[in-house]
């Protein structure tokens, strides 16, 4: 079974749905491939509100946000296949797809990668100890609680103060489980301020910074964890160890863009983001393969993933109809002092009004963000911010046409 389409979108979450719509509205024949039984991706288990502030000017839950986009997708004539997993992607944009309806190939004139991300695991951060049941990444726990109505434990410790951990702290408290504390290895919290307040402070759940889990105990089921404070190199400080009785450890220690397929297709990835190197149209280093959403960079707000998706999809449609000129040696955009990463990393020379995303490496106050030409030294953009946090993705626009390599940096 071989199918030919204009634009294939891999992943039907907030980015993929938007990309499919963006491509469709630019008049391409679109196939949206989603491996789960229904569209929505991670949104389906994010039952809390806070979604849609940008797209719909309302605060709605993840499932509602997903359903609205999914209904648009179907109504606008996007061919949707759920339960369909893309197993392989070649640079020539041929995919191997498996689903209960059959196994076959899809050939696309343009592909949008929107596979989202996976979670960092216990062993990736090498937490020592036993290997009992009861250690979950926060997203998996969220799936079990919100989609399957399963009681994951009774006394919970959470490692990592990113939003997923905070949201789960509240969610589990709502269901009568006891969350004994949230521990964060860095000296600052990873999640949004709003969540610190509404998920922890509201329920008197302690948040301990500069602290991490150094041991998991329990032969068959978690019986306790040991936490310790860390020094400024994030190494545990002897003498600060404390044992905390619990039966569940949730890990919210980072998200990793899921770029397996991208790698197979030869897409160049950026170590700073874990996602593809892209240009201002969200096209990767492989012509005709575009990337958006969490697989490109981890977003804090789903609306941001969707905005990228609309753009990427529209550009994929343009590519599919041959309306995109080959990209000659682009200008590079580097992350300078104080900047964790900048996206896009490459820009067609002559592009004016390019939108750049960035994150600062550490919390800053009264900080200048500058965009400078690396050869000329000219400043193309300069703005002062009262406050910037690594957890908040920032967007700026460089009005001037970009002709040379640039660097984005943060200065006091």
């Amino acid at each position: 079974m071989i199918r030919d389409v204009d634009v294939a979108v891999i992943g039907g979450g907030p980015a993929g749905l938007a990309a499919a719509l963006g491509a469709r509205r630019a008049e391409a024949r679109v196939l949206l491939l989603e491996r789960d039984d229904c569209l929505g991706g991670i949104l389906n288990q994010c039952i809390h509100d806070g979604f849609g502030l940008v797209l719909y000017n309302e605060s709605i839950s993840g499932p509602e946000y997903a359903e609205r986009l999914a209904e648009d997708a179907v109504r606008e004539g996007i061919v949707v296949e759920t339960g369909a997993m893309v197993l392989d992607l070649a640079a020539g944009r041929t995919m191997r797809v498996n689903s209960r309806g059959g196994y076959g190939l899809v050939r696309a004139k343009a592909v949008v990668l929107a596979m989202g991300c996976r979670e960092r695991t216990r062993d990736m951060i090498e937490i020592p100890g036993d290997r009992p049941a009861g250690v979950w990444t926060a997203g998996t726990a969220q799936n079990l609680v919100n989609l399957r109505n399963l009681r994951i434990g009774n006394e919970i410790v959470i490692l990592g103060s990113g939003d997923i951990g905070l949201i789960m702290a509240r969610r589990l408290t709502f269901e009568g489980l006891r969350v004994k504390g949230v521990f964060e290895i860095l000296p600052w919290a990873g999640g949004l301020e709003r969540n610190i307040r509404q998920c922890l402070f509201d329920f008197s759940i302690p948040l301990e910074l500069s602290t991490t889990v150094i041991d998991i105990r329990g032969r068959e089921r978690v019986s306790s964890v040991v936490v310790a404070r860390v020094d400024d190199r994030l190494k545990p400080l002897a003498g600060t160890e404390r044992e905390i009785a619990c039966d569940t450890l949730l890990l919210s220690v980072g998200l990793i863009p899921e770029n397996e397929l991208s790698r197979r297709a030869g897409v160049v990835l950026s170590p700073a983001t874990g996602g593809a190197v892209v240009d201002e149209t969200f096209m990767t280093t492989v012509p005709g393969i575009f990337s958006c959403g969490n697989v490109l960079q981890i977003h804090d707000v789903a609306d941001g993933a969707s905005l990228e998706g609309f753009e990427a999809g529209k550009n994929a449609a343009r590519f599919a109809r041959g309306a995109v000129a080959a990209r000659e040696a682009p200008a590079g955009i580097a992350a300078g002092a104080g900047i964790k990463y900048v996206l896009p990393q490459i820009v067609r020379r002559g592009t004016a009004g390019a939108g750049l995303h960035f994150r600062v490496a550490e919390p800053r106050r009264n900080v200048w963000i500058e965009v400078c030409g690396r050869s000329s030294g000219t400043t193309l953009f300069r703005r002062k911010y009262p406050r910037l946090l690594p957890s908040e993705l920032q967007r700026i626009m460089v009005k001037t046409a970009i002709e040379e390599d640039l660097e984005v940096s943060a200065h006091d």
Partner: protein
Amino acid sequence: MSAGLFDVAVIGGGVVGCAVLRELSRYRLRLVLLERRSDLAEGVSKGNSGVIHAGFNVRPGSLKARTNAAGLRAIYGLASALGVPHKKTGKLVVAFDEDGRRHLEALRSQGERNGTPGLDIVDAAAIRNLEPEVRGAWALFSSWTGVISPYEFTIALAENAWRNGAEVRLESGVTAADCRPDRFILETPAGPVSARWVVNCAGLQADEVAGLAGPADFRIRPFKGEYLVLDKAAGDLLRMPVYPVPPRDESSLGIHLTPTTEGPVLLGPSGETAEDKDDARSTRGIMDRLKAEAFRLVPALGRIPVIHAYAGSRPKLDGLATADGPADFLVAESRRHPRWINLGGIESPGLTAAPALAEHVAGLIGAREDLRPREGFEPGLPGRPRFARLDDADRAARAAADPDWGEMVCRCEHVSRAEVREAVGNPFGARSMDAIKRRTRCGMGRCQGGFCTPRIIGILQAEGLKPEDITKKGGSSRLVFGRIKP
């Protein structure tokens, strides 16, 4: 499940016990294997590197050497017949100086005395040719060394034995033995099991099991080893096991790098005395040392993420080591009770030696009884179809005939629902998450079960399991505590 008298009861469902069971199933014997845990291969056979040893690292004349050599000759054919993934990769033992080179010569010489085929000392250029990422001045290249999945091998041996009429009972630990003149009555949680012969393959607990039939004349001490597992991308950098020559002092662990048949590379095992036979904890200090030494030997591995860590213990015979090295395998009929055979201290090269040890045990029984061959003995297993390894045409055909082949449960290892369904239906009733993992590879990839676990929980619930009865590895390792709202 039959009551009544068995001819042979094998105690212990590791690779040795299952090899013994399978070997004995060639004959017309009523056989039962009693495993105390909720699945096979959960003891010593779990903390196993999965190396098929060529036999140059064992003392000539020892039972270890004889069974290693015989096992090597049998194991590749046996693994193929049983459909167990394995590969004759070759192996490099790497040296960096003259001292090391002399050690390699000694190993080769020892191997020659043991009848090990295919041993050569090679130079740095040859090393680079064989394994471009490995650093070393000289190496012993052993072309007959290979890798095999230790738990898939164990399970396949048991399933083959079962197809040939043997019984396998999980969660059937033997807690007492009533030794009568003509039989042994073994106490298990499900009731007494009577057998004329007992073969004790209980690994770390072999001394305790031996002690059920009167004071044991050997003791097992755990010698712990920790492992780290590198993402399967490491499999592109290393194709065969690489060991440094054993270090002269304790400054280094002398750790091994072992690729697996599926791609991930194992670092380890370390080696330290342990207090507790069930200690399987990973420790910070050892994990750091494993990485440091591995990346010194193969720097390119430094950029590959760690996906998993685990630990286990080797069953060391206490007090029987000599100046010549570690103790030999112990395979002996109890002096007090005829027809009770103990196997003790079956550490490396136990996996390779298992088929030969099994024949040895059959020989001990056959010396006193007339063993008649079983009619219609099936020596092989079809080998389970794996979606991940099928070609496009095969995948398409299967998905068309059975939609469960079209549904991916494990995204990292590309395991289909059909395979999970098959695993859940295994003949021994092993239904823990780890049991399914061992049979399908679900949960062994880079996300370590983050994606597949909720789906497998759903499948088990569809099979009738209550959520609170779904465990990670049997016993009280429940994954969830029931439903939130009834």
